[in-house]
């Protein structure tokens, strides 16, 4: 029954481009993109509490792969190649950095985007002698939306499955206390690595799928750090430890930013900064957790709370 509902909901979402016009479809592309980014980000960063600012490193690699290969390979193979490259890169990065703790990982992940950008630039300058590539693929906004919708649904399904599996349990233990996790026989490195690679591969695919919208691609366009920041803030707003949390953060924030860009085109950076502070100070566990707390307080029933948290 639940599967049937999910399929029906997905089908309904897929017809949305027919209902809305071009602009509506463009919004759907952005929404689906950020929901997928935030959900896949939270897949790794939520339970492990490793705040990764490397989103745009993988996102950009995906977009760049499409730019390089779109004229030599058929489109599905280009996407496969992007996923492969993203996964390989995540594996290498994960092997070398997932032993870093807390703040060091944050700093490294932020540097990674810049590192990848400089490497690509160096390669293009010294080896191929071109910087700036063109993507002339005949894909309209609705095609891109359908792909992102499929990827987003797959991401949510994968997240849900991981939560119920031994892997999800292991991750939660790691997030609570690494020492305890190690003593209870959890292979820390491998567990973190698997999740990191899965999450990064999905992020790479989001970049690859969205790239045909931009026609022209160069490192400064695809490695825009705002993507990393927005992903983090969306996931945190909704609640990174919950399955539907990132979605609940991404949708309202995306709509809010869209509204702000039209209403206050001169103040985006300031508003983004204020938003960050508001989320961190006022809603440290996300909107969903705050709502639950509010509800349980209203009922005067605190006994159910631990049970709920364990469920989450």
């Amino acid at each position, binding site marked *: 029954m639940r599967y049937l509902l999910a399929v029906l909901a997905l089908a309904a979402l897929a017809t949305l481009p027919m209902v809305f016009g*071009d602009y509506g479809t463009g919004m759907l592309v952005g929404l689906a993109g950020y929901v997928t980014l935030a959900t896949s980000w939270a897949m790794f960063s939520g339970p492990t509490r490793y705040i990764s600012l490397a989103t745009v490193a993988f996102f950009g690699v995906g977009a760049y792969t499409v730019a390089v290969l779109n004229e030599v390979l058929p489109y599905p193979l280009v996407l496969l190649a992007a996923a492969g490259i993203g996964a390989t890169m995540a594996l290498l990065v994960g092997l070398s950095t997932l032993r870093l703790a807390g703040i060091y990982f944050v700093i490294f992940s932020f540097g990674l985007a810049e590192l990848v950008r400089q490497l690509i630039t160096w390669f293009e300058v010294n080896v191929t002698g071109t910087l700036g590539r063109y993507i002339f693929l005949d894909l309209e906004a609705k095609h891109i939306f359908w792909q992102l919708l499929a990827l987003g649904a797959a991401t949510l399904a994968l997240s849900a499955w991981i939560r119920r599996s031994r892997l999800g349990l292991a991750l939660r233990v790691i997030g609570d206390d690494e020492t305890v996790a190690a003593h209870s026989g959890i292979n820390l490195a491998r567990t973190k690595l698997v999740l990191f690679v899965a999450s990064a591969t999905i992020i790479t695919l989001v970049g690859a799928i969205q790239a045909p919208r931009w026609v022209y691609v160069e490192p400064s366009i695809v490695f825009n750090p705002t993507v990393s920041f927005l992903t983090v803030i969306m996931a945190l707003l909704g609640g990174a430890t919950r399955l539907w949390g990132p979605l609940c953060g991404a949708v309202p924030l995306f709509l809010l930013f869209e509204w702000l*860009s039209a209403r206050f085109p001169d103040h*985006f950076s300031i508003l983004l900064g204020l938003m960050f502070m508001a989320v961190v100070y006022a809603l440290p566990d996300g909107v969903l957790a705050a709502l639950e707390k509010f509800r349980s307080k209203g009922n005067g029933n605190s006994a159910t709370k631990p049970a709920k948290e364990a469920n989450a």
Partner: protein
Amino acid sequence: MSQNTRRAVLRALPLAMVSALALSAPLAAQEDPVTIGYAVSKSGPNATGAGITTIPNYELWVKEVNEAGGLEMPDGSRRPIEVVEYDDRSSAEDLVRAIERLATQDKVDLILPPWGTGGNLAIAPLMDRFGYPQLAVTSVTDMAPEFAKRWDRSFWMLGGGHDYATALVETLAAAKEAGTINDKVAMISVADGFGIDLVKAARPAFEEAGFELVYDESYPLGTSDFAAILNEVQGSGADSFVAFSYPPGSFGVTKQAMTAGFNPKVFYIGVGGAFPVYGKITEGKQEGVMSIGGVDAMSPAIEEYFAKHTSVIGNPPDSWASAITYASLEMLEEAVKRVGLDHEALAGELSTGSFDTVIGEVKLEDNQLRKLWWVGQWQGEHFVAVSPADREGAAAPVIPKPEW
């Protein structure tokens, strides 16, 4: 505040609002406005370029047109311009969405282009699909001829990297023939789409003109310390120093040359050299520095344009793409006056008509502006055009450049 007075205020407020609306209503209702939309980078890495070249000219033009009563239609009536603007946050995805919004949601009459090569390419397929003419001013691309063919309502107005590089080589070759400089050139370039385009064209052109490239290195975008590079360049024996640079690197390399007392006979930098702020960077010693672009400083139209830009915006325009941006708006204004707002007719007029603008008479060739200034030089208060040397309005280059 007592209950009564608060009530009175609350009652008076809507009244005041209504009367304010009523007063402004006749003005707005007088003529149905023409809506013009644009999405530009007001935040993020592209905000600097957009803030210097694109946004001030849009604002200046809209203000002038509205003060004159609005855009003139073919029947002689005037309709005021109403602007719809969005911030694309320097993101291609947001830019594309903003264009979709302008075209299908706001249904604006005309769309003005964003700043930058990437932005203009990102919106080109959409502009084409929705049928809007696109005056892509701030895009430097060697592929312009192909793009003009692919999207037949797009117009490319700033040439390609190849044009700028070969014109510079010609200018230097003339000086070499005259015996003012030796045949050695030291060249650095920013590792960025723009720097690579120029250096790729410059290398063979220099060789063909009989120059020897004694130094040829690229540096990453964001480099701020040029001491080591200039040290090596200084020892290379080259009379000509060429930097295909990007701001703020263009300013950094200038500062370093001044500090190190590096005085080549030719000092050329890339984007930024034609910015009004360059005089401040060099503390007034910019005399003889060469860069991209230039204006015909003797032209009264340019002089008037500089004066009004300074008085309305608060600072003078840059001497490369600003005047061309403004000219593209004048073309649009004139074309609307001739054929109205129909997109197909407008595109046709822009493509085939000739227009009187601040940069002189403009007639596009295959949807591209080819009558451009490729090399300029600071001479006195102005960044004057020196290449093409045979075009009317060109100044003779001053080589060697005076010492800092």
